[in-house]
């Protein structure tokens, strides 16, 4: 399964990243790339619970392929959302269920962000994504 272009780019950037500081800077930069959500999109219906920060996730299927948008008030989390979306952009529902996102974050050197410690909430985002794709 070949990676989307943005995902290849993320991999290239993060994989050779030497330390936490550099990684944080990269996450902040990637966070800037997230297409902003407007006020009506940042609503309760799109809210992902189980994060200490506020997170919103929207998914849409066009021609059998999923396109997600996401936002958060926390900047590092925005970066994580960006590299997540880069990986799943344009996948079919089947591909979405199959993709190993733990492995994806591991390859980026970001495994710790998936810890079961609830406060960060990335896990809740992944789960919501799967639920949307399962319904859709």
């Amino acid at each position, binding site marked *: 399964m070949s990676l989307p272009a943005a995902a290849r780019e993320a991999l290239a950037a993060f994989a050779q990243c030497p330390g936490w500081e550099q990684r944080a800077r990269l996450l902040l930069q990637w966070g800037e790339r997230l297409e902003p959500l407007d006020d009506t999109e940042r609503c309760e219906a799109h809210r992902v619970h189980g994060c200490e920060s506020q997170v919103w996730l929207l998914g849409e299927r066009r021609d059998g392929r999923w396109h997600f948008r996401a936002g958060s008030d926390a900047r590092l989390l925005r970066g994580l959302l960006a590299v997540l979306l880069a990986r799943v952009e344009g996948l079919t529902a089947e591909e979405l269920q199959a993709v190993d996102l733990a492995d994806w974050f591991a390859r980026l050197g970001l495994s*710790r962000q998936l810890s079961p*410690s*609830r*406060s960060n909430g990335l896990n809740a985002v992944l789960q919501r994504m799967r639920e949307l794709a399962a319904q859709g």
Partner: protein
Amino acid sequence: MSLPSPWRADFPAFAAFGRDCQTYLDSAATAQKPQAVLDALLGYYAGGAANVHRAQHTPGERATLAFEGARAKVAAWLNADSASQIVFTRGATESLNLLAYGLEHLFAAGEQIAVSALEHHANLLPWQQLAQRRGLELLVLPLDAAGDIDLKQAERLIGPRTRLLAVSQLSNVLGRWQPLEALLTLARARGALSVVDGAQGAVHGRHDLQALACDFYVFSAHKLYGPDGLGVLYGRPQALERLRHWQFGGEMVQQADYHEAHFRPAPLGFEAGTPAIGAAIAFGAALDYLEGLDGEAVAAHEAALHARLLAGLRAFDGLHLLAEPHTALASFVVEGVHNADLSQLLAEQGVAVRAGQHCAMPLLRRLGLPGALRVSLGLYSEGDDLERFFAALHHALALLR
């Protein structure tokens, strides 16, 4: 026929018992812990304690991973589908109380709860009190001559008004495996929820909960070679969904405001407040330890010891077993001798067995006994323990008769 236990040296308590001339034959009350459990407990505290599920920092993540890892080990031990089916409690007793409160909303006056005549108080009183709160009928399934729940009678008694069946897997007094499969089939056929008290059963043999097909299963870590203060409630996902939240606080909350709140689903939604983190991690180590043993060798050792126990007891004049136990323990009385006198004289000789009603007062009353003695075994027990017990029993009886 000295039947040494190849695992005895893994349990540091026996060195201490040896120094104090104590013979421990009360494992059904609580089991000794392998060194691996002590190491895990110490490793956790000395490595830096942290609260779970609350913080992004490294000690907090480490504690959370270890705690959730323990949950996964419990799930694997029971062959549960998923770790989210495992709720940590203080013990079997709390698990059963959680169920009796969490399911309360499902009962309407006049409906029935079925328990058996041999239940431990922990699997009787929560249901009895629920019945009193809600105006329900508590059915007490009678026993047959062997000491098992009478299936014929159960079939007659358990009817369409029966909403729940709560029974033990292995009796803590009679030492008999109960006919769970038939009972659970019956409950399912009648549309009743089922609860299995595995406090004793979980310790002898390993059970596949997907095959057992009960809705809920409970047990305590401290009887399964783990630390005290920790218990397990296993539930099928559809059964867990029917539980109302019971205790409230800390991290079981999804969203809270002053006047209303929303709660997480199981398992976290049922673990209000800081849990017994160290105990959970150490219980994970107990399961790792057990996992590393040859289960068949353990079962064979326990069976041989148990046979030796029964044979030895039979050699005493006037000694009567309360039932013919299948495994793990033997309860008995001696004609003309009070169980309290016997247990006191055994204690004087350093033999630790349990006397009395074994938290099953109604069963003892039904058997017409003021109490009984119980000898119970663990995988670390060995033939010499039994020899010391037999000698002490002999001596005590000589004094008393």
